[in-house]
């Protein structure tokens, strides 16, 4: 098998990131697909790459893999310049547009990729069996790919990406053709990759999926990263909704505790620390309010995503992301 790194999950102090790009630009004639992509993916993390349709996500993936040459800017993947041939031995890739030789069996496709990846021949049988097992295709390994459903072909593509225990696995919309069981399998596979210390670059528009598996995300819009943020940081930001009556100035009273807004009879307080909630409730009651319900709320990635893209009807508080120029 190709050398797998020990990784340093969450290692912000890691000297060499898995991926680093600076003002990466791609233009197709007059059309600018990427304006200037600047981002850093740390070694050993699961990194979500999000953005609306046409934001340039797949173009960025192709640039990272050397499948396309940038018009300007620079970048490094696993310490080597973009497109470095030898580095590709250490990268697994599932394309968004996945397609494999229909006339071959699943096992033959995997063997072909073992050969293309220049893996030692002695490692092929075990590596192929392991990949087939992981993606749930062990019982169809000798069937022709042409007889596979779309979802099974995507599973095969995932198996291809996992061959040789790559240090970096790039998954472009890996669950687009999968059913809920398949999605759960992909989450488990990503978890196993993280545990092994591999870096996962996940390009997806399924925000709930990203939220479940990623350590950090970058949100890209119109060819530029508009925010890079850690999931833990995002999920820490809690809020509370309180149903309070008999207190017209409830919002003013709650003001010092966080950002407030009224939602019908509900008083919503964002960015409030969990431990401050009892004190807020006590103050509302002390000022004569009748508190009927207290419901904790949490920001979802979707809310943050929509707010950053400026499409949220009720945008979350600004300033807590790190917008990039």
């Amino acid at each position, binding site marked *: 098998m190709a050398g797998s790194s020990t990784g340093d999950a969450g290692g912000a102090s890691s000297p060499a990131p898995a991926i680093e790009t600076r003002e990466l630009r791609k233009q*197709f004639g007059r059309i600018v697909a990427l304006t200037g992509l600047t981002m850093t993916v740390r070694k050993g993390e699961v990194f979500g790459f999000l953005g609306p349709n046409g934001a340039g996500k797949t173009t960025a993936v*192709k640039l990272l*893999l*050397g*499948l*396309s040459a940038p018009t300007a800017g620079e970048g490094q993947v696993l310490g080597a310049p973009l497109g470095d*041939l*030898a580095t*590709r*031995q250490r*990268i697994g*890739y599932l*394309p968004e*547009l*996945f*397609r*494999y*030789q229909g*006339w071959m069996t699943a096992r033959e496709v995997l063997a*072909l*990729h073992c*050969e*293309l*990846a*220049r893996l030692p021949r002695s490692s092929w049988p075990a590596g192929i069996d392991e990949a087939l097992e992981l993606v749930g295709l062990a019982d169809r390994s000798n069937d022709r790919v042409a007889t596979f459903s779309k979802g099974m072909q995507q599973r095969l*593509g995932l198996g*291809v990406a996992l061959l040789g225990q790559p240090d970096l696995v790039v998954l472009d919309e890996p669950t687009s053709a999968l059913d809920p069981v398949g999605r759960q399998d992909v989450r488990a596979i990503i978890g196993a990759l993280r545990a092994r210390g591999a870096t996962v670059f996940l390009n997806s528009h399924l925000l709930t999926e990203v939220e479940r598996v990623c350590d950090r995300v970058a949100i890209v819009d119109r060819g530029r990263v508009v925010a890079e943020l850690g999931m833990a940081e995002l999920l820490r930001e809690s809020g509370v909704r309180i149903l309070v009556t008999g207190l017209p100035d409830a919002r003013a009273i709650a003001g010092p505790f966080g950002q407030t807004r009224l939602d019908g009879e509900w008083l919503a307080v964002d960015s409030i620390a969990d431990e401050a909630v009892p004190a807020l409730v006590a103050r509302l009651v002390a000022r004569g309010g009748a508190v009927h319900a207290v419901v904790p709320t949490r920001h979802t990635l979707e809310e943050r995503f929509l707010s950053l893209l400026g499409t949220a009807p009720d945008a979350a508080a600004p300033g807590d992301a790190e917008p990039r120029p």
Partner: protein
Amino acid sequence: MNRGAILVIARLTLREAFRRRLLWALVGLTFLLVAVTGWLLGKAAELNPLQGGEQQLILSQLLVMIAFMFSFVLTMTAAFAASPAIGPEIENGLLLAVLARPVRRADVLLGRWLGLALVVVGYALAAGYLELAVARLMTGYVPVDPMVAPLYLAGESLILLTLALVFSTRIAPVASGSIAVVGFGLAWMGGIAGGIGDYLNNDSLRNAGTIAHLILPSDTLWRGAMFALEPPSDVLAAAGSQARIFTVSPFFAGTPPPLPWLAWCAVWVVATLAIGVLLLRRREL
């Protein structure tokens, strides 16, 4: 260039050809064709009361026309095997997974070329020698250079294969296949024009032939195949004035292709592949 990756892609191409039914259908049709043409040649040799040189000339012309049919089948096979070899695989995403490996675009093009060339040349030689063996068995006719004729036909198909493959990096399969077949026809016509120019000592026609042979040298090799299938020169000399009528036929070559023109064929293939590599490198995936 990475020799290992080229060989992997070439082997993949060979396996694909053998795994698909098209090649086997072609092999079956070839046996049928050889049987039918062998019977036809036998009848021509048996029923024709003509003797000596004239009979040999007629048999040679029949054989050349059968070879022309073979060369057309070969051209079509080469063009339509090569024309979908690159473009559709980019469009359907098949090459994305391959090129994300330590594989250059040049490796894909050259590997595809090598694999298809082995299929087409192998088919050309096997079918060509089989046809010649059957012809000899049925008629006893021995052309001037029977061993070389299938090599020329194989070379001719390589030229068209290269053309279709290079076009397939940029344009749709139907278009690149059609261009190769039309190119084959134009080159053949150009060769005939050049032959007439030689016969009439007309520079314009002669130059048209030369230019056609420079742009697409398939006809150079076709003329080599024709010459190899003709009767030896002593038979032609013995036929005397009867042979003259054949020398003005578009299915007659008075001389084998000169060595510099054969060298040009090799240079043309290398240069065209180099252009193909450049075109593929510049294509956005």
